[in-house]
């Protein structure tokens, strides 16, 4: 098997160039997908027979929550790659994921609270799903705090990578908390074994929103990755070339 592509991922100038080329394409595609999904979710999708129009909050809440988990999983995988292969670019990628994941955890919690009030009668309960999602926010804070607190970049990489890998245990806990424990939160309707339980007219805008959020995540990670690489490599000769 040809591993050249993998070795190229370890090259900061190569990855910087790749990120500069592809971020606008991902960003453009994400904007298109999110705008169409918003129209589909807010205008075209029929109202739910139980939740009426309140169910439309799913189009912002579910993709935010999913992205908060995907960002953490990506961060942990990148951290593990950085730790195992001593790849600085991978540590930079992990660092680029953290603030985005933290913001989308805030969005997931906030939109969940706004959905919880009319459906459950309260903004917050110490439910397993909600509590584990709040813990995810603290894990992001911990990761970013740890990186910021250690001056030596290599030590910061190692310590934060171990932290990210240990914390990834919270991801399946969040995902399966609604199955493992009694929960006010509804069970999965899309990402579950078997067919989704949603009507197709409601489902397609949600699936498109997931695609849009994934593309958006890729675009923003690539922009942040460029910033991380420049900070880390600011004395390197290739930086002179890209800034000229």
């Amino acid at each position, binding site marked *: 098997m040809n591993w050249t592509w993998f070795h190229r991922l370890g090259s900061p100038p190569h990855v910087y160039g790749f990120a500069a080329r592809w971020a606008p394409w991902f*960003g453009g595609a994400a904007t298109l997908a*999110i705008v169409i999904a*918003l129209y589909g979710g*807010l*205008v075209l999708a029929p*109202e739910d027979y139980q939740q*009426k*129009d*309140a169910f*439309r*909050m799913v189009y*912002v*809440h579910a*993709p*935010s929550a999913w992205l908060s988990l995907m960002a953490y999983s990506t961060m942990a995988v990148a951290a593990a790659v950085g730790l195992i292969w001593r790849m600085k670019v991978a540590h930079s990628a992990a660092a680029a994921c953290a*603030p*985005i994941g933290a*913001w*989308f955890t*805030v*969005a997931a919690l*906030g*939109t969940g609270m*706004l*959905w919880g*009030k*009319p459906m459950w009668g309260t903004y917050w309960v110490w439910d397993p799903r909600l509590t584990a999602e709040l813990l995810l926010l603290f894990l992001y804070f911990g990761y970013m705090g740890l990186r910021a607190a250690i001056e030596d970049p290599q030590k910061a990489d190692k310590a934060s990578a171990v932290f990210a890998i240990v914390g990834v245990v919270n991801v399946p806990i969040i995902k399966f908390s609604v199955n493992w424990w009694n929960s006010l939160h509804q069970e999965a309707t899309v990402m579950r074994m078997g067919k989704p339980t949603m009507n197709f007219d409601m489902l397609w805008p949600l699936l498109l929103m997931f695609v849009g959020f994934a593309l*958006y995540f890729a*675009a*923003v990670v690539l*922009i*942040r990755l*460029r*910033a*991380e690489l*420049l*900070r880390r490599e*600011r*004395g390197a000769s290739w*930086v*002179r070339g890209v*800034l000229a």
Partner: protein
Amino acid sequence: MNEFFAMDGYGIYLWPSFALGIGVIVLNVILAWRSLAAAKLDARRRLEMQA
């Protein structure tokens, strides 16, 4: 139009929810670009000092 914004009486929850989601999307793009601009400025200063 009013009916659309009322959202069956759930508009007071639904629109802030969408505002928060879209706000986080826009904010993350701004923060990422600012981070990149700051990193470029810092790298340029470093190169000028080396020259």
